């Protein structure tokens, strides 16, 4: 049995006494697709912050490819193969779609290389491939800020894939998307799993169901339950803290 790609060991994060995460354990194996759900304030975004180095946990350890990520700078963690998509689309709005992707696929990511070398044919092909995956070929030279919300989400996902990370952390990829766009995004993420390990955070139950993957339910900073979507939905505890409440809200 090979070692897991990512392992969170008893992670706790405390913001001035408030425990955002408490003894959180999570294991992801190579090629996994995993969804994480949880009510607002459950610590979903905080735990991505911990993995990507934005927040230092109060205690616990993050093991990625058998090495600890704790205390590493964000850009080093990114270079090691952790890619992150933010909750609201964060792209470089004043650059064109193509330029955005060029920054993602460039390697090595040093000032000297960016200044002296031009993009390799391999990279240019990769940019074309990424644009065709997310259907943005016709927008190649358009300023990214002029894209629609859904296209921005996709561009960010494409940039993420362009970084060629082993682990993709995707935070609410379908927020504000139309149903059709949501379905396409689900298919896209499913197709990325296998080659990559993908962790998706979202609220949208339909979307999670469509991903058809193991789900972890986060509640008050720790994992309440792990299992398939149908198992989760039957769990009385989960219904109480999360699903039940949301159904009430819908009524």
């Amino acid at each position, binding site marked *: 049995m090979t070692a897991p790609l990512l392992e969170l060991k008893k992670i706790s994060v405390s913001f001035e006494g408030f425990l955002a995460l408490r003894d959180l354990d999570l294991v992801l194996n190579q090629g996994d697709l995993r969804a994480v759900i949880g009510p607002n304030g459950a610590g979903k975004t905080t735990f991505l912050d911990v993995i*990507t180095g*934005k927040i230092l946990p109060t205690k616990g350890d993050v093991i990625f490819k058998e090495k600890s990520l704790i205390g590493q*700078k*964000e*850009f080093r963690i*990114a*270079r090691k193969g952790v*890619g*992150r998509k*933010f909750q609201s689309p*964060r*792209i*470089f*709005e*004043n*650059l064109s779609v193509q*330029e955005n992707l*060029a*920054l*993602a696929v*460039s390697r090595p*990511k*040093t*000032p000297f290389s*960016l*200044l002296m070398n*031009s*993009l390799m044919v391999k990279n240019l092909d990769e940019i074309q491939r990424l644009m065709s995956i997310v259907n943005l070929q*016709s*927008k190649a030279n*358009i300023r990214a800020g*002029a894209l629609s919300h859904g296209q921005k989400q996709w561009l960010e996902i494409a*940039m993420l894939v362009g*970084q060629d990370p082993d682990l993709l952390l995707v935070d609410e990829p379908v927020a504000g998307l139309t149903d059709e766009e949501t379905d396409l995004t689900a298919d896209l993420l499913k197709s990325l799993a296998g080659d990559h390990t993908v962790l998706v955070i979202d609220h949208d139950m339909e979307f999670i169901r469509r991903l058809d993957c193991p789900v972890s339910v986060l509640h008050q900073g720790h994992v309440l339950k792990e299992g398939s979507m149908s198992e989760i939905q039957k769990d009385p505890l989960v219904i109480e803290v999360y699903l039940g409440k949301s159904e009430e809200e819908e009524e």
Partner: protein
Amino acid sequence: MSIFSTKKSWINLTIWALVIALIIAAPSVLPVFRLNLLGRYLSLAIVALGVDLIWGFTGMLSLGQGIFFALGGYCAAMFLQLNSAGEFPNGIPEFFGLYGVEKLPFFWEPFKSSIFTLISIWLLPAIIAGFLGYLVFRNRIKGVYFSILTQAALLVFFNFFNGQQKLINGTNGLKTDVTQLFGQMVGSEIMQRWFFWISAVLVILAWFFARWIVRDRFGNILIGIRDDEARVRFTGYNPVVFKTIIFSIAGGFAGISGALYTVQSGIVSPQFMTVPFSIEMVVWVAVGGRGTLLGAILGAVFINYAKSLVSEALPASWMFIQGGLFILVVTALPEGVLGWIRKDGLRKLLFLIGINKKLETYPSLEVDEQGEVKS
């Protein structure tokens, strides 16, 4: 397409020919006084280019470029003073005698070499900018805090230089116009003519250099840092390195600019490190067009020329006009004059006053083979 591009290159060629002809002809057309002013303003365009790189592209508003500007000026002035100190007592610059200093301070020694001076004019400010910048950027100080910090640094340098009579003549500064270079007086007409040409050529070289920096992905990373630094980090780039490099380059530009300005105005003094002067540099770039390199050059040259013309006609009114210009640009043309023109501002204005018709185009639509708009 090809006709268009050849037409465009012809226009480019014509503009360049015109610029070069103007530079060559200027000394024969302009009176010495005006030529000297133009030369100074061209040298200021170089520091403006640096401000544009760090502010317009990278989003770091430095209010302390005067530090590096003055350092370049002091390097040049120290060399010139030493170069013509032969006949003075102890063979050291005259002002030392006023304070009873008999031995040249150690840091003056290397400035006896012209090569050392030519290198240190840009390298010394660049190194200091890089060092200060690294400390600030490493601690993720940005935005307003960065601006305040640079201004504080400026005041520290200003006060330090002001107080060091025995080292660099303190508040009086170092005069260069009566010093000798190549057997000529630096303030002489022929030298000033050469300094004008050197300034003009260096502005062009600095422009090419800056353009090369921002042309491709390096420039895009700078813009990325300006717009969303965290995204740059999570894409795997280290913003600290990029910011340090660009701040260092801007420091080097400021140094060259300061040296050229010094030899053309005849003196370098701590006045180069006053707060208003460093803020003026930002105003030139804001008015000319932040993020457009040409805008920085034009802003520096035209605003300063306007300053001298207005000051001659209506003394004491310039500060009001400059302030008004700044407010106008910030409110009405936030991208500066050149940025506004490039964004079709002229046509929109003509439309507003009813001269021109609005164009019916929607540039980002793409049509497929059947003539239908792609989604």
